[in-house]
């Protein structure tokens, strides 16, 4: 499992092992200030990063910030 989470410290506290930092609490996978196509692109990047996290072997809690 990968946790795409707006508040990474909470995700770390509750024990998620793979964490992808999200954008903001009311729109973790979007940004209403961006034009629609850029927002879709942003979301796609985050989901791709989430998949990469799932493909990565981890031994301890890991934040996939890049």
């Amino acid at each position, binding site marked *: 499992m990968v946790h795409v989470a707006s508040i990474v410290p909470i*995700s770390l506290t509750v024990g998620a092992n793979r964490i992808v930092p999200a954008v903001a609490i*009311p729109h973790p996978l979007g940004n209403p200030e961006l034009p629609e196509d850029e927002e879709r692109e942003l979301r796609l990047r985050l989901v791709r990063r989430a998949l990469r996290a799932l*493909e990565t072997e*981890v031994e301890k809690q890991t934040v996939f910030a890049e």
Partner: protein
Amino acid sequence: MAEKKYRVVHYLNQFFAQIGGEDKANVPPLIQEGAVGPGRALQQMLGEEGEIVATVVCGDSYFAENIEAAAEKVVELTSPYRPDVFVAGPAFNAGRYGVACGASCAAVSEKLGIPAVTGLYQENPALDLYRKRVYIVPTADSARGMKEAIPKMATFVHKLGLGQELGLPQEEGYFPRGFRINQFAERSGAERAVDMLLLKLRGEPFQTEYPMPTFERVPPSPAIKDMVSATIALVTSGGIVPLGNPDRIEAASASKFAAYSFAGVDDLTPDAYQTCHGGYDPVYANQDPDRVLPLDAARSLEKDGAIGKLYDLYYVTVGNATSIANAQKFGQAIAEKLKAANVDGVILTST
């Protein structure tokens, strides 16, 4: 000397009541007059002021297999004796017996309105089940600790029997029940915090005023080797539900989760989906629910072949002041269902 003795009813399993061992573990609740087994030692310590008027006995397996009915029966048998206090065990680290003691104490105390106390080892699974509802005195892990446990429980029964007010868990020697009680402190929070910090820096023991909950740690799952043939599921605590919130997931302190199919759907639109989460500004999620549950992105990755398949169902609850116990329960249930459906990986999104 008290003119009127306080009355005590004691609960024991078949073994400590000397009815039998595992062969008698299926005996339903029954009642005996007076003190039995360890109850006799307890009676000695209570002296002249209290009296164990009866002992309820039940087989451990019977109780564990019929918890509610058995507890109900214990209340029924206890009630005619009009006790002032109910005491159970001690059950040490015995699982079934511990549950029987905890459930009996909780039921009697709640139905008859009298205080109840039992004794358990700190790792007995019944401790966390019942510590909020009854007083539980720490004991050793086996009956070898009976000699130490009885006086501790007797002191407790005595105080409760005399109607004395009990102090804080660490003063009276029982497991904290999780209640918060307001009190006035002589020194401000800032001063107390600095004192604690200084003690900590010096490596000396200190007592926190606000213990943090402890969260379970799980070992990381292995990496997905073959993403292009993997089935991936979406799960969210962000409250994205079909319009109208058909299962009425609560906006806060959710008591449930739900699963919905988005088979054939490529994009979450405001005419069909919404958020029911009460803990964040819903405007952005209601404009475009993909901002919380990224279906459009997941579908395009499925079409491009980056993943094998997006699982047809998504799971949703509301993570807003949700109790840890409920959250764990939801998590375990969802994980079991996804595993049974051969899902290889999960993307959980949280607001």
